[in-house]
């Protein structure tokens, strides 16, 4: 979010009302101080709006974590993966089904390291990863890739 253009627009709109001063220098100065004083108030209002936006986005992206952060002094929404938990995505069901996977030793090590880094059990980490993939189903939307290719 860029606050500076918003402040500029608000101050400009208020400036247009400055003709009420009718050329009176003292009134002009008072209006000028008033407009300048609005800056901090508008900045705080922008932070409040950013937090409201975060709540709204958070409600629509349940598998993401949405935070309000400061970027170069302006509020911004940072969207990251929600923390991995052992929670069953199929709420209310017992974890009594089993799938036996055969994986390479390297992949097993990668999974163990990723789960440890996320502070989750291996079972919880794998369950979370599979749940997210399965929930996408056949929907082609959503994409994530870190890759190198030539053009």
């Amino acid at each position, binding site marked *: *979010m*860029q606050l*500076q*253009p*918003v402040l*500029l*627009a608000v101050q*400009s*709109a208020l*400036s*247009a009302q*400055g*003709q009420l*001063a*009718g*050329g009176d220098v003292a*009134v*002009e100065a008072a*209006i*000028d101080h008033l407009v300048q004083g609005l800056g901090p108030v508008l900045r705080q209002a922008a932070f409040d709006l950013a937090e409201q936006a975060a709540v709204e*986005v958070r409600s629509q*992206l349940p598998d*993401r974590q949405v935070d309000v952060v400061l970027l170069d002094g302006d509020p911004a*929404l940072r*969207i990251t993966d929600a923390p991995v938990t052992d929670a069953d995505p199929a709420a209310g069901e017992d974890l009594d089904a089993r799938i036996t996977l055969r994986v390479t030793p390297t992949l097993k090590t990668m999974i163990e390291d990723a789960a440890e880094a996320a502070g989750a059990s291996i079972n919880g980490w794998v369950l979370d990863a599979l749940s997210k993939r399965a929930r996408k189903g056949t929907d*082609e*939307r*959503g*994409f*994530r*890739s*870190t*890759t*190198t*290719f*030539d*053009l």
Partner: protein
Amino acid sequence: MNRHERWPVGDHAVLDVGVPSGSVEVRVGDHGSVQAVLESSAAEDFEMSAAGDRITIRHPSRWFVRGRSCRLMVTVPPGTDVEIDAASATVRLVGVLGAVRLRTASGDVTFDRVAHLDVTSASGGVTGDRVDGDVSLTAISGNSSFQRVDGRMRASLTSANLRVDECAGDLTVVTTSGTTRIGHCGGSDISVRSVSGDVRLGLPTGIRVEADLSTVSGRARLPEPAPFSGERRPVNLNVKTVSGDIRIERSR
């Protein structure tokens, strides 16, 4: 009432303009002088002065009833640096100018060719042919379009759309809902972050792309990669959206 002024200047003139509303046209003319014609009901209230090679044309008060709207036409030497603060004035820059800094709330801006461009705009659009150097663009809702940018481009946008036919330098775009379309991006460091705006980037052939791409709910479309072959110029490509689509394609 009209005012006509003329000042002799050297090779590195700077034009400083501040007007509340109306129109500003800066046109490149001959070397050696700056000429200004101001049309306003309160033209005599404007400051029109020179300090060395710096020419200042400003309305004395943002609050005056009289003379808020004006028509200003200035002829400057080629390569003149221009600084304009305008609340709602339209700005037209004709010819080859130096570094240009614009701050406008709602007026549209057009230009032919400038050395560098720094624009902050609330709702005004920015349209131009060529920037020989870097571009810094901050806009809420005004759409921006450039034919060619030779330097680095940085844009912070809210709902404004951005279109650049060719950007030779690095590219950094942060946008909320505006679409970003770069026909050809020749830089080595390309970063676009968007919430709901679509992103479409053209990349040249003969490069090695180290890509970090993600969209939460948008669609992604990538070109068929070429077979790996020897050394290629590396390009860092970082594109992230929440719901905006991502499309990467070969530009040429």
